[in-house]
């Protein structure tokens, strides 16, 4: 650490300021006397509850689908692997609205998969399930990318040793591989949760917006801007606090 050149200090601090200043500016705009009333209104609480509920579900889905996917990408080899690796990261670079449009043409009522579900009487459009799908779509790459990196860094020596001692593949996975990458798994899951919590574009494009079933906190903020900017600022501040708590939690769980 001592070898850092001194000139790094100024742009570094500028960078920190660049991130922190808007947060301070927003906090300064909150009408504190009204804060309690604004964030406990029925629509705000419904949005907060829905956001937490859908983001937790999305994070869980990310783990269920993302861990096996990361394992495949890091440990197996098959033709097209490198292409697949690039493709699963696409939601990271796509504007979320584009993700929403893509989901609409997949799971919408006339969509590739959706029209068959419609025949079975399952409708995803305008449901909380649609919100979870949108959030999972944008959040999944975060888990995959952090876990795959950790798996590569960890290497396969311990796995090979365990296998040579007679452990079956599932036992190697649960007793050697996963414990080795646990910190990355935890931080990846927290990142997924955080990304799902902030999801806006794909949700509003694909799931719609209705209090209690699809209007998450970011959508509520966007809507409140139209009629009650003060409420929007208060809710933004609330979302920021939740975000800070998540980051704090992730940092504590995963020592650098």
């Amino acid at each position: 650490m001592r070898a850092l050149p001194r000139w790094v200090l100024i742009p570094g601090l500028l960078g920190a300021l660049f991130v922190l200043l808007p947060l301070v500016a927003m906090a300064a705009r909150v009408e504190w006397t009204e804060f309690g009333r604004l964030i406990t209104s029925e629509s705000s609480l419904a949005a907060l509850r829905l956001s937490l509920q859908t983001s937790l579900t999305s994070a869980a889905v990310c783990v269920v689908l993302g861990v096996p996917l990361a394992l495949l990408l890091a440990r197996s080899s098959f033709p097209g692997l490198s292409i697949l690796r690039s493709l699963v990261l696409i939601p990271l670079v796509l504007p979320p609205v584009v993700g929403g449009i893509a989901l609409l043409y997949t799971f919408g009522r006339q969509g590739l998969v959706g029209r068959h579900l419609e025949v079975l009487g399952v409708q995803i459009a305008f449901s909380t399930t649609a919100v979870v799908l949108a959030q999972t779509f944008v959040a999944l790459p975060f888990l995959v990318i952090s876990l795959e990196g950790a798996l590569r860094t960890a290497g396969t020596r311990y796995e090979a040793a365990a296998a040579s001692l007679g452990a079956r593949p599932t036992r190697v996975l649960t007793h050697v591989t996963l414990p080795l990458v646990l910190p990355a798994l935890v931080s990846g899951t927290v990142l997924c949760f955080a990304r799902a919590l902030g999801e806006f574009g794909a949700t509003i494009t694909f799931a719609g917006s209705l209090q209690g079933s699809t209007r998450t906190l970011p959508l509520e903020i966007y809507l409140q801007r139209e009629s009650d900017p003060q409420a929007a600022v208060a809710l933004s501040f609330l979302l920021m606090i939740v975000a800070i708590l998540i980051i704090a939690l992730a940092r504590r769980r995963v020592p650098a």
Partner: protein
Amino acid sequence: MRAPRHRARPGHLVRPAAAALLGLLVTVGASGCGTGDVDAAESSTLVVYAAASLQEPFEELGEQFEAAHEDVEVEFDFAGSSTLVEQIQQGAPADVFASADEPNMDTLVDADLQAADPVPFATNTLMIAVPTGNPADVTDLASLTHDGVNLVVCAKAVPCGAATGRVEESAGVEFAPVSEEQSVTDVLNKVTTGEADAGLVYVTDVKKAGDEVEGIDFPESDSAVNTYPITAISDSAQQELGQEFVDLVTSESGQRVLDGYGFGRP
């Protein structure tokens, strides 16, 4: 040997970051210059902030205005009226503001940003839009409340949602929409993609969507006529030019352009 190597390594780490930061600074600097350019050219650029629903007729009117004023270029910003008012209040360089409803224009007037009293120049009413073929057999407002009809409307907070509320009231029905969208464009989108069986949008939106939707008129739409007001902005350096654009919009030829896109006359 060891000392120089130690010093070299952090340098390697820092260089890409420094390059990125430099890039950022250059970008910020460049956009700063950009603003300067706009200031310099402002004498010949008229900036019109207009409600999103006005895009097609206003672009046509903008061309007419440019044809009549050789050295003037008309630039538009089309967005939700409330967004535009907020931006003008924060000092956005608008010369003219055309709102999709009166409350948003009132906000502008309350902030004393109008160069002259706002003038109503168009009206718009709601219409039921259904996907082509009308899969849910929607016939009137009452049929929108039937089970299994996926109805999408605007949220109460935006002008088209407020109009929807007035229609509900006067028709004595209560909708149970599957979604309350942020803008009328979002509602129309849900209908054209077939996600929704019906949506309440403006007459002009149905016209704009062409073959993708069918419009169904209903008598109660008279209870929620949206009036569009327009005004030049007082902070503008070229109020006169702004007023000329307002005059064009309210003139007979301007009104005819608006007629063509389905707007009513005030």
